[in-house]
């Protein structure tokens, strides 16, 4: 497998406080990487740097060999804020939005078909004409996920996307993500605070703490309670 | 040719008021068009002497009507224009509350309304102050610049404004109200007869289109003649332009001290006074500097 994202010596300061310190990390095409770590540990910051949304204070991120200095259509982010839907668009319009504005020029039928598929996938068919202010927290998150998936980007950057989903929807969406991942070979970088979720989804897990990658775990045997305990051990100071 | 078509345009500022009556007659009767067949007359309706002057500086207008002092201020500042004709004299005066018997009674917390500094009303007031107190600028800091209708409202409202320097028909309306009387007339202040409104043209019009210039002067004269000879008919025509009854208009047109005349009167007196009192930087030495040749004028 080839390297799709290469992070070298990456640092980030906020008001002279060092948030990320000389991070090195390579992500291979088709990898499902989960990032876990304490709150305030720099997970969102790292994702924003990979996505090109903020500037680093040293080191670099490259995507497919090219240095990232601005956001990229092939690297779509689902943000942690759940007010990331456009309030002036309905669920359906929010999901259609990237398709309608894509240089690929999807035809009307393609747009309808794709939007329909993803609306169904996140089970919002009934709510497709609702405006964001009429949705529950979890519905907003699901809409944002569908919007990110609909253009099938090469890399998905997901910042706690299942944060306010009930367990059933969450489990279903986790399985859907895995399916999509397997089918499309999308590279996924997934921030979560749920260790079990990370173990269920990832084939690589990194633990981010004190501004550095503290552990990198190959996750072959998924879903074991021992694993959970082991990782919680890593997380404890 | 192109030049010909340009020659056939004249741009005149139109203003409203009994003192401008000949202008409306000229417009309504198409007198200028008759005297210069084929001419295109553009009437720009304007409400403010200063704006007219600025428009003439900028070559947006060829002809404007105004009082002598604003004309002299423009001339003093280097505007290339001269008086082409007289137009009218109407009664003007300082109306005050009854408590105020004369200029002597005007105190520091009284206020005098008039159209604007540098207007004929202002200069007349300064002339009176010079005579009375030997200080032409004595009242300059008591001035409130209100248009005639606002000035009348202010005077009658009985607030700070205790006197109003105004003219027909506001003067008459104020005098008809109990509690107000006239403490100074324009003639007293000036010391004689003077043109209230004169017609001014740019040098450009005068030099480049002498035919048009001549036709304009002739038309003004005809309009004046028309009013003087057929006041009834003139009043009838003017009802189109003024929201007044024919009777009222006729009354104003034929009032004793209203006079329509193409003769320019009083220019020397204004000029010398304004120069002495620093409202002008210079006065003219020869009358040709301020009036075009062939313009009738009278001096005292």
């Amino acid at each position, binding site marked *: 497998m080839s390297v799709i994202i290469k992070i070298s010596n990456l640092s980030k300061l906020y008001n002279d406080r060092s948030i990320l310190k000389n991070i090195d990390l390579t992500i291979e095409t088709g990898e499902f990487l989960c990032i876990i770590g304490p709150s305030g540990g720099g997970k969102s910051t790292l994702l924003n740097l990979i*996505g*090109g*949304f903020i500037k680093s204070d040293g080191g670099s991120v490259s995507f497919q060999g090219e240095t990232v200095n*601005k*956001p*990229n*259509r092939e*690297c*779509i*982010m689902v*943000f942690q*804020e759940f*007010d*990331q839907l*456009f*309030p*002036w668009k309905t669920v359906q319009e929010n999901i259609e*939005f*990237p398709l309608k*504005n*894509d240089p690929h020029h999807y035809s009307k039928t393609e747009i309808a078909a794709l939007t329909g598929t993803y609306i169904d996938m996140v089970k919002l068919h009934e709510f497709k004409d609702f*405006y*964001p*202010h*009429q949705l529950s927290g979890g519905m907003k998150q699901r809409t944002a996920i569908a919007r990110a998936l609909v*253009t099938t980007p090469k890399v998905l950057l997901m910042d706690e996307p299942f944060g306010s989903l009930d367990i059933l929807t969450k489990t279903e969406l986790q399985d859907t993500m895995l399916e999509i991942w397997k089918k499309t070979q999308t590279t996924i970088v997934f921030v979560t605070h749920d260790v079990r979720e990370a173990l269920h989804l990832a084939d690589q897990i990194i633990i981010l703490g004190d501004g550095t990658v503290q552990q990198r775990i190959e996750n072959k045997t998924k879903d074991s309670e021992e694993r959970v305990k082991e990782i919680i051990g890593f997380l404890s100071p | 040719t192109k030049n010909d078509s340009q020659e056939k345009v004249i741009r005149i500022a*139109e203003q*409203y*008021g009994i003192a401008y009556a000949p202008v409306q007659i000229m417009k309504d009767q198409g007198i200028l068009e008759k005297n210069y067949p084929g001419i295109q007359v553009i009437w*720009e*309706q*304007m*409400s*403010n002497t200063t*704006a007219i002057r*600025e*428009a003439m*500086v*900028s070559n*947006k*207008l060829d002809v404007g009507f105004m009082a002598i002092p604003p004309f002299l201020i423009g001339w003093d500042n280097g505007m290339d224009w001269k008086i082409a004709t007289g137009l009218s004299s109407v009664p003007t005066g300082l109306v005050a509350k009854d408590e105020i018997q004369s200029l002597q009674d005007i105190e520091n917390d009284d206020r005098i309304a008039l159209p604007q500094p540098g207007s004929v009303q202002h200069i007349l007031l300064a002339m009176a102050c010079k005579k009375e107190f030997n200080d032409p600028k004595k009242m300059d800091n008591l001035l409130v610049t209100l*248009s*005639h*209708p*606002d000035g*009348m*409202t202010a005077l*009658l*409202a009985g607030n700070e404004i205790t006197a109003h320097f105004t003219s027909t028909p*506001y003067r008459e*309306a104020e005098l008809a109200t109990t509690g107000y009387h006239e403490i100074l007339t324009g003639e007293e202040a000036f010391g004689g007869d003077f043109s209230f409104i004169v017609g001014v043209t740019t040098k450009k019009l005068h030099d480049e289109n002498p035919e048009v210039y001549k036709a304009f002067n002739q038309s003004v004269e005809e309009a004046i003649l028309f009013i003087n000879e057929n006041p009834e008919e003139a009043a009838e025509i003017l009802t189109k332009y*003024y*929201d*007044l009854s024919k009777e009222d208009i006729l009354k104003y047109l034929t009032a004793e001290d209203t006079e329509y005349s193409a003769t320019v009167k009083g220019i020397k007196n204004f000029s010398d006074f304004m120069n002495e009192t620093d409202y002008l930087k210079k006065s003219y030495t020869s009358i040709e500097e301020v009036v075009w040749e062939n313009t009738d004028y009278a001096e005292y």
Partner: protein
Amino acid sequence: MQNIKAIFLKPYSKYVWIGIMLIAWEAIAKLTPVSPLAFPSLEAVVAALINSILTGDILLQMLFSLGLIFVGLVIGVLLSFVMSALSVVSPVFESFVDTCVSIFHPLPGIALLPLIILWIGTGSKAILFIIVHSVLWPMILNMTAGFKSIPVVYKKIGQNYEFSNAKIIFKIYIPASMPYLIAGLKIGWARAWRASISAEMIFGASGGIGGIGWYIFNKRVFMDTAGIFAGLLVIIVVGMLVEDFIFSKIEDRTVKKWGLS
């Protein structure tokens, strides 16, 4: 008590208030010793209005003013939009726009008159210029403030899909700053009215019969106070119609529908 309160909560509550104000007006006109020259009774105003409609050009003058205001508003909105959008895109242009706003916003049209007459003359174009000058600067202020207050995450989404600057502005900035734009538009509309009335009082009837400002000016010159108020009444009525049939419709279809208010 509840019943009385309910009257003011209906959609027509505006008209209740207007009714109250009219009654107060009439009471002052009738019961206090004010001069009818300054404070005419309602009957006189209505009579003057009917008279102006039947025998005068007031409706045409109104249309003329509305036409000028509409054109001026459109030009002002487009210009302010272009300038605000360019400030978003280019910091160099932003400093230019900032400079222009701080220089020109406080300058009254009346102070610019000599320049306007010099460059544009005294016709309808001069009135238009004054209207645009009145509308432009507050619109720019509100638009740039609106653009700045957009949540960062919306901008990030636009960047993520590599939208062109134009697309980011049209697809994200404009809808996201709708409440500001509507407030700006309302200010612009009122300012355009004010400017056109003042300008017509200075420049007169440039379009033949002139506009409603010229109507009012003429009434003033001839001390027809009831006529002045008839003119003001027309302005107010048109203003309320625009408010009720244009601005509220815009609000209903945008900010209200999106739950932003």
